[in-house]
């Protein structure tokens, strides 16, 4: 039975206990420090937060390899990779401002919640100064805003959504990878010259920020070329079977299928589309075509010979012939025995760029690093001359249009670079309709 003891004494006792409990948290105040996780010992720690499970796990594994290689090179181990070709020469392989670089890793599971938890534990437990990674724009956007709140730097890894440096851009976040708008701008003219001006396209789109902006960009640029969209169907990110989404495509009257899918999604949807015989169909008197706007080597490997002839765009390819690419491919190949993917390249470059910015700023303070990176022009990192635009923290550089290799000579020879679209063709204003609405805010050093 309930004890009903609402006596005056009982009430007073209970009240005072409750009051003491409520008053407690106000006692605690923060300890003074110049910025979040100011390094005090002989090491500085980076956090590499990548998907180790889920549809983007392959990309995550490759990113992690690249991060480890970058840390080795910054600490002066290995052959130095792109340090020798980088236009800035302040990194000399002795660590960062006299401190050795250490790192911790985490699994984002390609879920925003898990990614935030992992990033938070890196910041609070491991005292990291910079977090890099991604492989899903949803995760990148979530972790970027966390880093902004906590006062550390976020160097985005593989994230292709317009929103990362568009409506969700943050002062403490930087992106080297290209975006959906640039893919559309580079692919539009190429696709029109390959397949003609009179085409009807059907889109399958991964249902999250990247897919949405990718679909919007493709629609806009293809309609500019005179193509017509039949419909745009959203598919869940966690889906593995796309047959129910693919079945209505042929009868819809469309003669091009655009797959706004990435990673494991794209491997499954493309494989199933090819199994449906879509590559050999004739619709409206034309050959049916499949387009994958964002292609990577890892996806091509997963899709096997189905990728033959499929056009798409890439940030970088290991077959490029510039000095930076050659140095990186050689160094990565010696370490892991395979050529690096575009995910590996962007993560490696981001780590070097952060290290370089710290060294040039002579400080780990995030605000000094932001200042050093904003408007920074550099070269020799595999993409030609590149600009880190101050207005939105987006890198501007050439974009590759690639096609799946019809006759690969070996298992790594999967994509051909069909065209290098110069940076002027994919440049846009910061207030472009696909990017407007965001606000960088102020840099936050935390603490």
């Amino acid at each position, binding site marked *: 039975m309930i004890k009903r003891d609402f006596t005056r004494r009982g009430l007073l006792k209970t009240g005072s206990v409750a009051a003491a409990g409520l008053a407690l948290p106000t006692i605690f105040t923060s300890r003074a420090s110049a910025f979040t996780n100011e390094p005090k010992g002989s090491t500085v720690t980076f956090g590499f937060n990548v998907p180790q499970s889920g549809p983007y796990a392959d990309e995550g594994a490759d990113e992690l390899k690249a991060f480890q290689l970058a840390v080795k090179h910054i600490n002066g181990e290995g052959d130095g990779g792109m340090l020798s070709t980088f236009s800035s020469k302040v990194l000399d392989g002795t660590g960062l401002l006299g401190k050795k670089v250490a790192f911790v890793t985490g699994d984002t599971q390609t879920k925003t919640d898990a990614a935030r938890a992992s990033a938070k534990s890196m910041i609070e437990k491991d005292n990291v100064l910079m977090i890099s990674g991604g492989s899903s724009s949803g995760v990148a956007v979530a972790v970027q805003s966390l880093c902004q709140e906590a006062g550390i730097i976020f160097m985005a890894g593989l994230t292709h959504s317009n929103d990362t440096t568009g409506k969700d851009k943050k002062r403490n976040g930087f992106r080297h990878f290209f975006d959906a708008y640039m893919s559309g701008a580079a692919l539009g003219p190429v696709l029109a010259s390959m397949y003609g001006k009179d085409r009807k396209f059907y889109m399958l789109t991964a*249902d999250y920020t990247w897919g949405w902006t990718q679909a919007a960009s493709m629609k806009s640029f293809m309609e500019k070329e005179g193509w017509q969209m039949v419909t745009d169907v959203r598919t869940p990110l966690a889906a593995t079977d796309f047959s129910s989404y693919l079945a209505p495509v042929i009868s819809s009257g469309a003669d091009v299928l655009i797959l706004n899918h990435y990673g494991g999604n794209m491997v499954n949807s493309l494989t199933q589309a090819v199994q449906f015989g879509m590559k050999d169909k004739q619709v409206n008197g034309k050959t049916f075509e499949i387009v994958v706007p964002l292609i990577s080597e890892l996806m091509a490997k997963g899709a096997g010979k189905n990728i033959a002839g499929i056009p798409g765009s890439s940030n970088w390819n290991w077959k490029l012939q510039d000095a930076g690419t050659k140095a990186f491919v050689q160094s990565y190949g010696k370490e892991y025995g395979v050529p690096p993917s575009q995910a590996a390249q962007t993560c490696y470059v981001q780590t070097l760029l952060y290290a370089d910015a710290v060294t040039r700023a002579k400080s780990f303070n995030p605000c000094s690093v932001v200042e050093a990176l904003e408007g920074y022009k550099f070269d020799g990192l595999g993409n030609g001359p590149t600009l880190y635009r101050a207005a939105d923290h987006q890198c501007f550089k050439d974009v590759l249009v690639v096609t799946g290799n019809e006759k690969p000579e070996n298992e790594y020879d999967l994509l051909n670079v069909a065209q290098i679209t110069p940076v002027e063709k994919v440049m846009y204003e910061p207030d472009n309709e696909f990017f407007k609405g965001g606000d960088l*805010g102020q840099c936050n050093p935390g603490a």
Partner: protein
Amino acid sequence: MLGLGKRDLIFLAVVLALTLAAPVLLNPFAENSGLAQFNAGYPDLMQRIAIFAIFAVGFNILFGLTGYLSFGHAAFLGVGSYSALWMFKLLSLNIIPGIILAVIMGGVFALAIGYVSLRRSGIYFSILTLAFAQMSYNLAYSVLTPITNGESGLQPDLGDPRILDAASSSGSVPPTNIFGLAMSETWKVDFLGRVFQFNAGYYVCGLISVLMFYLALRIFRSPFGMMLRAVKSNQNRLNYTGLNTRPYMLTAFVISGMYAGLAGGLMAAMDPLAGPDRMQWTASGEVVLMTILGGAGTMLGPVLGAGFIKYFENIFSKINDHVLQGWFSVFPHWLQDLLVTIFHPFMGKGWNLTLGLLFMLVVIFLPGGLIEGGNRLMRLTRRRRRDDGPRPSEAPAE
């Protein structure tokens, strides 16, 4: 005092003391030692343990007392998070209105889902709740994108109205707070090479969870709790005596839904982002796992289970090959590689595998959960001490 017997009062005092001292207790290893990897005394993990303890204690009111296994409790957690976040966006970044709405919305959703689901019992009830939760997940994921922002999750924005807050001039979103005390505020103390982090957000979560623990204790000891136990032992017999059990069931369901809503609201308050993942069936399964692992129907069991699983998820998942190589570096190179290969599948991303094995061991050898393990250990030591003395009266594991 507080309407509790002496035993329960002491029990509650111990729980309160453990909660207050957690930042110290969970950080036993020095910062630079190799074992620092296993420290759990950082704000994010402690907050999570406290929040999931609330979630599991609430779930236990339904599952532990009535035996009705709900497989959709994550839906209420998610609803709580989204409601709290909308309060942060529209009203104020003070967490109190957000948490209040989270509890209310958790209750409203539980009322609607419970009203339909409780018409069936056993496996059919579980499947119905699972279906509702999955529906909520899909709604949040794609259909209701304008409200939930889909997969990317909802977060506070610089352009939000926040009509109760003063306009911020700092150019970034201010942190969530209680009347100005930021949830991220942390007071760090260096002590013998250990860094203890006393975090405001943790103490808010911790004290609320003690309060909720007390409430659950009262429910367990009340006539209402007795009625729920009667439902568990034989619902048919109750019905034949002319008692309508459904109002009792529905009340229990709504209470546990409100607990889940509160947990969701607190999650959003500690980290202002709400994604649909926390409504997925895996999240519902997690709370079932926590309750069973700790000991269903006991008071402390779900709390232990929550702590155990969150610890595994956050600590073991960060042990990568690099760390393993460090551990085994004293061995010759071939042995080091061999050991890393053996441990690799169980660490890092393989933490689920380790947890699964442990769960199997617990269910097979300790059907009453970790609490039963503790009780057995206690009995063993007591028996040894008293040797052939009279056996101590066996208290129920509560």
